[in-house]
C-alpha cells in the first residue's frame, strides 16, 4: 500500500474512530472528550481530503480494491475506492460541511443530555457518506447508501421520547426502503447481465449491455436498470412521490437537518446518477423519466414552502425543490451542472439551516415564524449570514447559487429530450417561487414588527403544525417568555455560519469555468454528443463575471426580483394583505396544507392496507384455514374416526351380531342387484 492509499483509507476511518470512541463510551467520557475526538476525526479527514484533492489535481487517480468482500460463482464483490475528481469534490464537500456542523453542534446541543451520542452519530454519518462517495463498486455503494439511511433514522429519532420523532424516523426509513427496492433491482440487473459489480468493468461493457433486454419482460436492459437505480435515488434524494419523508425529518435536531437532510445525504442520489452517467446516457427513456420527476419536484415542492410557518419546514421544502433542480440537470444530461449545484447548494443550504437553528436557539426553541420578526437587531451575525444564504439560494448574480441554478436553466433550455419543455417551464417558474418563499421567511424572521415575547398561550406557539403533520407536541419548544429578548448565539454557532457564508458567495464564481465548461469531469461524466447541452451553453460562456453581468438582464433574475418584491409587499409593506387575499386562495391552500394529500394517501393505502392485509391473511389464512381446518381439523378428524372405531369395538356381543346381520343383508342386496 502506497502512502497515498493509506491516506485514502484514513479519510473514512478517522471519523469512524471518533464515532466509535464517542459512541461506545458515551456514558463514561466527559463531553469535551466526545466533541474533541469526533471533531479531530473529521478535521483529519478534511485535511487528508485536501491533500488527496491536490494529488488528484496533479493527475493521480486511483481505482482499486481494498479487500474482497465475498465471491460467489463468477461474481466478485469487493470493497474498494475510486479516487477521481468527482470523488474528491464530494469528499471536500462532505468533510468541510461536516466539520462546520460538528463545531456548531457544541453550541446547539449544549443542553442536551444526549450530547455524546449525537457526536457519535454525526461522525458515523460522515464515515458512511465517505464510503458511499469513495466506492468503486455497487456493493459498497449500497452499503454506504443504507448506512447513511441508518444514521438518518437514528438522528431523526434522536429525541426518542417524542412520538412525532419516532414516527418520522420510521417513515423515513421505510420510504427509503421503497426506493432501495428499486435500487437493489437495478443493481441486480447489472450484476446479472454484466457479471460484475465494479463500476469501471460495468461501464466497459455498456455497448454490449445496451443491446440486451431483460428476459421475461422484454424491457431494454439499461432502461430498466437505470430506472431501478433512479428509484433508489428518488428515495434518498426525496423526489416525488418518495419525497414524503424529508419534511418530517425536520423532527431531528437542526445540525443534522443541515448536514444530512440538506447538504450531503440527500444529494447521494444526484451523485450516484452522475457516477452512472455512462449508463444513463444510453437510455433516453430513463433520462426523460428522471427529467419529469425532477421538474415536478422542483416546482411543486416549492409551492409547499409558501404556506409553511415553521422556519425549518420552509427550508426543508426549499431543499426538496433544489434537489428537483439537480435532478432536472441529470435528466438533460448536464451531470456536471447537477453536481455543481449540489456543491453550491451544500454550502448555502447548510448555511440557511444552521442560520435557522441559530434563530431557533435565539428564540428559545420556538420555530414558529409568526412569533418572530425584527430579529436583525438582536442577532446581527445570524441575520447577515442568513441574508447571504437566501440571496445565494434565489440566484442573485455573482453569488454561488446564481451560477449553478442559471446553468441548469440554460441546460434545460438547450435540451430536446422528451419532457424538456415541461421541465423548462418548471425550473423557470420555480425561480419566482423560490424567491418568494425564501424572502417571505427572511422578512418575517428578521424584519417587521417584533412578535416575540408576547404573552401567548401554549397552543398558539405550535398552532401551525396542523398542516397535515401530526406533530404538535414539540415538548422542548418553549419560546421566549414575555419581555425576554432574543440573543445572538455563541461563537461556536456563528463561526460556522460565517465560514459557510464565504463559499456561499464565492465558490460558484471560481469553480464554474473548470467544472462546467472545462475538463474537470472529463473521463468521469460521459455525455453523448447529441445530449451535450452544456457544450451548447458553453458557446455563450466567456467568463464568470460576464455570465453574472448578463444574468442581470435575463428572465430568471427578474423573476427572482419579482418574488422578493412580492414577499416584501405582502409581509412588510402591507402585512394585512395575506390575511385579506387568503379566502381567494382557500381551495389551493387546502391542497397545499395537505401537501397534495400524499401523506394521507400513503397512510391509508400503503400503511393501512399492509396492516389490514397482514391481519386478514393471519386471521383467514393461518388461523382459520391452515390451523383451523387443516391442522386442528385433521386432528379432530382423527379423533372422530377414533370415536367411531371405539363405538364399533365396544365388546358387546349384541352390537357385533347386529352389525353382522346388517352386513349380510347389504351383501345380499348387492349381489342380487347385480344378478
Amino acid at each position, binding site marked *: 500500500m502506497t502512502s497515498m492509499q493509506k491516506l485514502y483509507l484514513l479519510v473514512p476511518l478517522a471519523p469512524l474512530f471518533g464515532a466509535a470512541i464517542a459512541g461506545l463510551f458515551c456514558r463514561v467520557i466527559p463531553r469535551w472528550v466526545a466533541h474533541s475526538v469526533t471533531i479531530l476525526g473529521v478535521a483529519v479527514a478534511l485535511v487528508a481530503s485536501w491533500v488527496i484533492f491536490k494529488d488528484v489535481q496533479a493527475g493521480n487517480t486511483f481505482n482499486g480494491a481494498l479487500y*474482497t468482500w*465475498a465471491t460467489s460463482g463468477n461474481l466478485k464483490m469487493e470493497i474498494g475506492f475510486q479516487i477521481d475528481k468527482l470523488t474528491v469534490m464530494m469528499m471536500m464537500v462532505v468533510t468541510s460541511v461536516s466539520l462546520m456542523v460538528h463545531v456548531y453542534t457544541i453550541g446547539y446541543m449544549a443542553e442536551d443530555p444526549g450530547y455524546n451520542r449525537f457526536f457519535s452519530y454525526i461522525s458515523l454519518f460522515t464515515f458512511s457518506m465517505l464510503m458511499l462517495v469513495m466506492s468503486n463498486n455497487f456493493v459498497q455503494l*449500497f452499503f454506504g447508501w443504507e448506512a447513511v439511511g*441508518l444514521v438518518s433514522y437514528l438522528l431523526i429519532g434522536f429525541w426518542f421520547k417524542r412520538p412525532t420523532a419516532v414516527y418520522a424516523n420510521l417513515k423515513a426509513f*421505510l420510504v427509503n*426502503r421503497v426506493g432501495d427496492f428499486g435500487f437493489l433491482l437495478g443493481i*441486480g440487473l447489472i450484476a446479472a447481465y454484466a457479471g460484475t459489480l465494479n463500476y469501471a468493468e460495468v461501464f466497459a461493457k455498456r455497448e454490449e449491455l445496451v443491446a440486451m433486454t431483460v428476459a421475461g419482460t422484454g424491457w431494454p436492459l439499461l432502461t430498466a436498470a437505470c430506472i431501478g437505480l433512479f428509484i433508489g435515488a428518488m428515495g434518498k434524494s426525496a423526489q416525488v412521490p418518495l419525497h414524503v419523508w424529508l419534511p418530517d425529518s425536520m423532527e431531528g435536531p437542526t445540525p443534522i437537518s443541515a448536514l444530512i437532510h440538506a447538504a450531503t445525504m440527500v444529494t447521494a442520489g444526484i451523485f450516484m446518477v452522475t457516477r452512472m452517467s455512462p449508463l444513463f446516457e444510453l437510455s433516453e427513456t430513463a433520462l426523460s423519466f428522471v427529467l419529469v420527476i425532477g421538474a415536478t419536484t422542483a416546482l411543486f415542492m416549492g409551492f409547499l414552502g409558501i404556506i409553511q410557518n415553521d422556519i425549518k419546514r420552509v427550508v426543508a421544502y426549499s431543499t426538496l425543490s433544489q434537489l428537483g433542480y439537480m435532478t432536472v440537470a441529470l435528466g438533460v444530461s448536464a451531470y456536471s451542472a447537477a453536481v455543481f449545484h449540489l456543491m453550491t447548494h451544500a454550502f448555502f443550504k447548510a448555511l440557511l439551516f444552521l442560520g435557522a437553528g441559530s434563530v431557533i436557539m435565539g428564540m428559545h426553541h420556538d420555530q414558529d415564524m409568526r412569533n418572530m420578526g425584527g430579529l436583525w437587531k438582536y442577532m446581527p451575525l445570524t441575520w447577515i449570514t442568513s441574508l447571504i444564504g437566501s440571496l445565494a439560494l434565489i440566484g442573485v448574480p455573482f453569488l454561488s447559487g446564481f451560477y449553478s441554478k442559471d446553468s441548469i436553466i440554460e441546460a434545460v433550455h438547450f435540451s430536446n429530450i422528451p419532457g424538456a419543455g415541461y421541465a423548462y417551464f418548471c425550473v423557470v417558474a420555480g425561480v419566482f417561487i423560490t424567491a418568494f418563499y425564501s424572502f417571505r421567511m427572511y422578512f418575517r424572521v428578521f424584519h417587521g414588527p417584533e412578535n416575540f415575547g408576547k404573552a401567548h398561550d401554549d397552543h398558539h406557539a405550535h398552532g401551525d403544525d396542523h398542516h397535515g403533520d401530526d406533530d404538535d407536541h414539540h415538548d422542548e419548544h418553549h419560546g421566549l417568555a414575555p419581555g425576554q429578548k432574543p440573543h445572538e448565539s455563541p461563537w461556536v454557532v456563528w463561526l460556522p455560519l460565517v465560514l459557510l457564508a464565504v463559499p456561499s458567495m464565492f465558490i460558484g464564481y471560481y469553480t464554474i469555468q473548470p467544472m462546467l465548461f472545462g475538463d474537470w469531469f472529463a473521463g468521469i461524466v460521459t455525455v453523448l454528443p447529441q445530449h451535450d447541452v452544456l457544450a451548447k451553453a458553453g458557446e455563450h460562456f466567456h467568463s464568470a463575471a460576464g455570465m453574472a453581468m448578463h444574468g442581470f438582464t435575463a428572465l430568471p433574475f427578474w423573476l427572482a426580483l419579482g418574488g422578493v418584491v412580492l414577499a416584501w409587499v405582502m409581509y412588510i409593506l402591507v402585512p394585512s394583505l395575506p390575511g385579506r387575499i387568503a379566502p381567494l386562495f382557500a381551495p389551493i391552500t387546502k391542497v397545499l396544507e395537505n401537501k397534495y394529500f400524499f401523506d394521507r394517501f400513503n397512510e391509508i393505502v400503503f400503511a393501512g392496507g399492509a396492516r389490514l392485509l397482514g391481519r386478514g391473511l393471519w386471521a383467514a*389464512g393461518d388461523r382459520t384455514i391452515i390451523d383451523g381446518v387443516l391442522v386442528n381439523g385433521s386432528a379432530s378428524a382423527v379423533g372422530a374416526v377414533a370415536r367411531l372405531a371405539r363405538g364399533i369395538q365396544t365388546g358387546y356381543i349384541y352390537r357385533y351380531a347386529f352389525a353382522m346381520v346388517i352386513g349380510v343383508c347389504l351383501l345380499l342386496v348387492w349381489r342380487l342387484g347385480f344378478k
Partner: protein
Amino acid sequence: MTDIPLLSLAIWLPIAGGLLVLASGDGRNTAFSKLIALVTALFGFLVTIPLYTGFDASSASMQFVELMPWVRDYNINYHLGVDGISMPFVILNSFITVLVVMAGWTVIEYKPSQYFAAFLIMSGLLNGIFSALDGILFYVFFEASLIPLYLVIGVWGGKNRVYAAFKFFLYTLLGSLLMLVALLYLFHKSGSFAILDWHREPLAMTAQSLIFWAFFASFAVKVPMWPVHTWLPDAHVEAPTGGSAVLAAIGLKLGAYGFLRFSLPIVPDAAQHFAPVVIGLSLIAVIYIGLVALAQTDMKKLVAYSSISHMGFVTLGFFIFNPLGIEGALVQMISHGFVSAAMFLCIGVLYDRMHTRNIADYGGVVNTMPKFAALFLLFAMANAGLPATSGFVGEFMVAMGAIQFNFWTGFAAATTLVLGAAYTLWMYKRVVFGDVANSHVAELDDINSREMLILGVLAVCTLAMGIWPQPVTEIMHATVNQLLDHVAAGKL
C-alpha cells in the same frame, strides 16, 4: 489432526456431558451441574474449531470422515463427514449451545440440571444430523433431536406448552415418516445406506418424483415452508428463551440442510422439475408471512414469522440453482442463526423482567435500558437486512441470484427490503422508543454483564460476518459448485 475423531467428539462430548449433568441432579448442587454444563458446552465448541481451521476449502469431498460398521446385515454404518455445506453448521450449533447455557444460567429455576442436560444432548444430536453420511444414522439423529426440544417446550414452556409441544412433535413426525419410506426405498434400490452412494444412484423420473415429495414432506415442515409453518409460531411462543434460540438458530436449518444433502443431489431431475413449486412457496413465505408478521401483537410470534419469511429466502436460493442463490442461502442460514438467536434472547431479556411478550405492554424501554436498546437495534437492523450486518449478506446474494434467474422472482423476493424493515422496526419503535409507557417499564434494570456478554458476542459475530463474509463464503465454493454441476448433469 485427522487422527482425532473431531466429529465424534462434537457429537458425543455434549451428550456425555449432558448425561453427567443429568446425573448430578437437582439437589443441593445446582451450581456444580451448571458448571459442568458450561464447561462441556465450551469444550464442545472448542473441538469444532479445528473443523474450520483444518478444512481444505479447495476440495468438494467429505472431510474428517469416520467410518465404522454398525449393523452389518443391512450395510448400515457409523459414517460421519463434513463438507463445505455442513461444516459451518456444526460449529454454529456448538457455538449457540454455549450461549444458550449462559442465557439460562440464572433464569431457569425449575429443574435446572435437566434443562441444561436437554440442551447439551440436543446439541450433540444436532451435530450428528449435520455430519451423518449414512441414511439410517441421519434418520436416528434427525428423529432423536425432536425429543429434547419436545421436552424443553413441554416442561419449561408457557401456558399452552402442551398444545404447542404436541403440534410441533406431530407435525414434524408426520413429515419424517414419509422420509423414512424414501430412505428404505433407496436402500432397496441401491443396497446401501450411504448417502453418497445414493447421490450416484440412477433413478427414473417417476421414482425421483415420489422420493422428492417424500423428502419434501419432511424438510418443508422443518424449514418450515408455507403452508406447513403454523407449528413454529406456537412452538416459539411457548418455548423458553433458550428453546426458541436453538429452534430458530439450528432447528430451522435442518430442513434446509436436508434439501441440499438429499433432495438436490439424490433426485436432481425432480428437483429441477418441481423447482417452480418450491420457488412459488418460498415467495409466498417471503411476502405473505412478511405481511402476517406485520399484524402480530406478540413479540415472539412476530420474530417467529420473521424467521419463516427469512427461511423463504433460503429455500428460494436453493431452487434457483445458481451459486449466488445457494451460497447466499447458506450464508442466510448462518446469519439467521446469529440474528434470530439474538432476537429471541433480546425478547427473553425483556420477558425475564416484565413477564409479558405483548408489544402493547412496552414502550420507551430505551429510557431505562439504553445499553439493551442499542444492542437490540443492531439485531433489529440485521433482521431487516441492513448492510454491514450478516443479515444483509445472504439476502443480497439470494436477491442477486434471483434476479439472475428471473426478473420477477427477484422482484418478489426484493419486497423483503420493505416488509422486513416494516415489521421489525415498527415493533422496535413500539417497544423501545417513546416516553416511558408505564410503571413497569420505569422500573426496568438495564442488562447485566452476563446478558451483555451473550448479546455482545452475537453482535460481534453479526457485524464481522456483515463486514467480511468472505471467510464464510469461500469454504462453500467447491462443494456448491460440485453440487450444481451434479444437479445440472441430472440422472436421466
